[in-house]
């Protein structure tokens, strides 16, 4: 059993729980993670060699990486909710709301920014709790509840902003922070990748994360074991709302003048990104890192189409097609492994293996 090194070590460390048989588990397999990883690499190659020869240039990176960064943060939040078997349609309204809060509370003064961010955080926690409690405690349909909450938040945002805006720009500190980059790569992307790793760490290495996974995929089991399963699922909605909040604030900083349509493009795309990351819509399978790749994929695809001069109608159409393809592919991969095991069981070697006595490794 060789010691894993380099990238492989990172992969194993992030994706797998630490085990005594550490390192022997790395085998290339057809999983949602490897599939979206491969698709992502292919898309990068197409972008560089077919769409534009300047894809990795500083110019296109400085346009693209902030977009990817916000997309990743929002999609990871959506992944937590979809992992519980729910769906969150309040994402766009929450992002728009925090954009407006930052605008109005900070009054274009750097000193008031912290207060505005605290206000945003409280708003997100409250929205997450409302979503979670309605869905988990009252057992209402996630689609309907989050749609309604989204509408409530959108309405409140309009009232909150009022008709005449005294300030149209976010504080300079925020736009500078959101616009910063290293060598053309936006800090937003760096932060979002960091968040995806934190999310993975939470799900795989922390007690609460593992209980969340169990409560999502096997709610009955979690109850029999004595976990507060609905509590953990409500937590997922709160985590998600807070991610949308972070995404919304950073996007507002990036744009400088957040308007009432700030979050709209993220409604469908965040769901597409999570599905691209191989999430089952019935809950259970959720990987922030695969979601990261899914978010990057859908953003780059949209960028490529824009560079090639396709209309917005064409781009929406493509997103729809990608969603359908990803859903069928995710289903196909799961069934493939099931079919594979049927074939293996039929083989003579496998039959011997299940009959015979195998020592515990």
């Amino acid at each position, binding site marked *: 059993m060789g010691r894993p090194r380099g990238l492989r070590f990172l992969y194993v460390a992030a994706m797998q*729980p*630490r*085990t*005594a*048989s*550490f390192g022997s*588990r790395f085998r290339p397999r057809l999983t949602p993670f490897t599939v979206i990883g491969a698709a992502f690499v292919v898309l990068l190659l197409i972008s560089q060699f077919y769409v534009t020869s300047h894809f990795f240039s500083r110019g296109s990176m400085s346009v693209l990486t902030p977009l990817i960064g916000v997309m990743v943060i929002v999609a990871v939040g959506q992944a937590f909710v979809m992992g519980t078997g729910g769906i969150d349609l309040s994402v766009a309204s929450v992002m728009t709301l925090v954009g407006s809060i930052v605008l109005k509370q900070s009054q274009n003064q750097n000193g008031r920014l912290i207060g505005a961010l605290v206000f945003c955080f409280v708003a997100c926690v409250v929205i997450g709790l409302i979503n979670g409690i309605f869905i988990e405690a009252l057992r209402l349909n996630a689609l309907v509840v989050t749609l309604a909450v989204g509408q409530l938040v959108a309405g409140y945002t309009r009232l909150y902003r009022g008709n005449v805006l005294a300030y149209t720009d976010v504080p300079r500190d925020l736009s500078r922070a959101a616009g910063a980059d290293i060598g053309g790569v936006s800090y937003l992307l760096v932060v979002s990748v960091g968040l995806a790793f934190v999310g993975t760490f939470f799900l*795989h*290495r*922390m*007690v609460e994360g*593992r*209980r969340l*996974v*169990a409560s999502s*995929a*096997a709610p*009955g*089991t*979690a*109850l*029999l*074991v*004595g*976990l507060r399963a609905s509590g953990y699922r409500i937590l997922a909605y709160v985590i998600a709302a807070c991610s949308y909040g972070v995404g919304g604030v950073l996007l507002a900083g990036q744009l400088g003048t957040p308007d009432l349509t700030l979050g709209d493009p993220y409604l469908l795309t965040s769901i597409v990104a999570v599905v691209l990351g191989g999430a089952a819509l019935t809950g*259970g*399978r959720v990987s922030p890192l695969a979601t990261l790749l899914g978010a990057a994929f859908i953003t780059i695809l949209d960028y490529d189409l824009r560079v090639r001069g396709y209309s917005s109608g064409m781009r929406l159409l493509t997103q729809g097609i990608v969603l359908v393809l990803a859903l069928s592919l995710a289903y196909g991969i799961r069934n493939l492994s099931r079919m594979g*095991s049927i074939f293996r069981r039929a083989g003579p070697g496998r039959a011997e293996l*299940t*009959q015979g*006595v*195998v*020592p*515990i*490794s």
Partner: protein
Amino acid sequence: MPEPILEISGVNKSFGPVHVLRDIDLAIYPGQVTALVGDNGAGKSTLVKCIAGIHSIDSGTVAFEGKPVILNDPRVAAALGIEFVYQDLALADNLDITQNMFLGREIRRFGFLADGQMERKARETLTSLSVRTVSSVRQSVASLSGGQRQTVAIAKAVLWNSKVVFLDEPTAALGVQQTRQVLELVRRLADQGLGVVLISHNMNDVMEVADRVAALYLGRIAAEVLTKDSSTTQIVELITAGRSGDIGLAPATANESI
């Protein structure tokens, strides 16, 4: 006769107008397998869920090691050392064997999961039960056969130095070979000094591993008999009619409609 480790007396439970359990008295002894048998709807699973704390009891008392206890939460039963292996298995498909065995009671190191330690303990437990049917404690539960799942569920129950284990139909969906393995495991648990309650429909299983049989009939304990003193026919009569010869419920009670 040793002292019973778990003693249930006068337990009643209703779901709305349906009186599911009526004055149940049952004693579980350490080192013995007590079979709980009864027809569909006789109240076996309800009784188990009442002891587990999933359902509350309407009246009656439960004593554990001679002391009265109130079981109103699955964690209370777990803390006492009463474990349950449910019919619907209670394993999370997307976690592996180790993760399932420690679900809800994870070992922490600096607040994080100590997976290596849990893996070792899981392996030790399986080895101590002479389980050789699972190849790795890191296997995902979704990939296990019915017998292997049952084995894991039972091993999970004994991981916690438990004193009483309830097994709800552990052999219901298993083949001959796997049933044999699970029954051997059940016997080993009792030989290690645990009080084992086996809920089963299968008379062969019951006659093979059980020391005592408690037959439930329409929410009542019809009789508690020793396996070595009774025949399959007698037990089947207790299950289906509530009485057999001069043991069981009084004819008037047995014929009472619910």
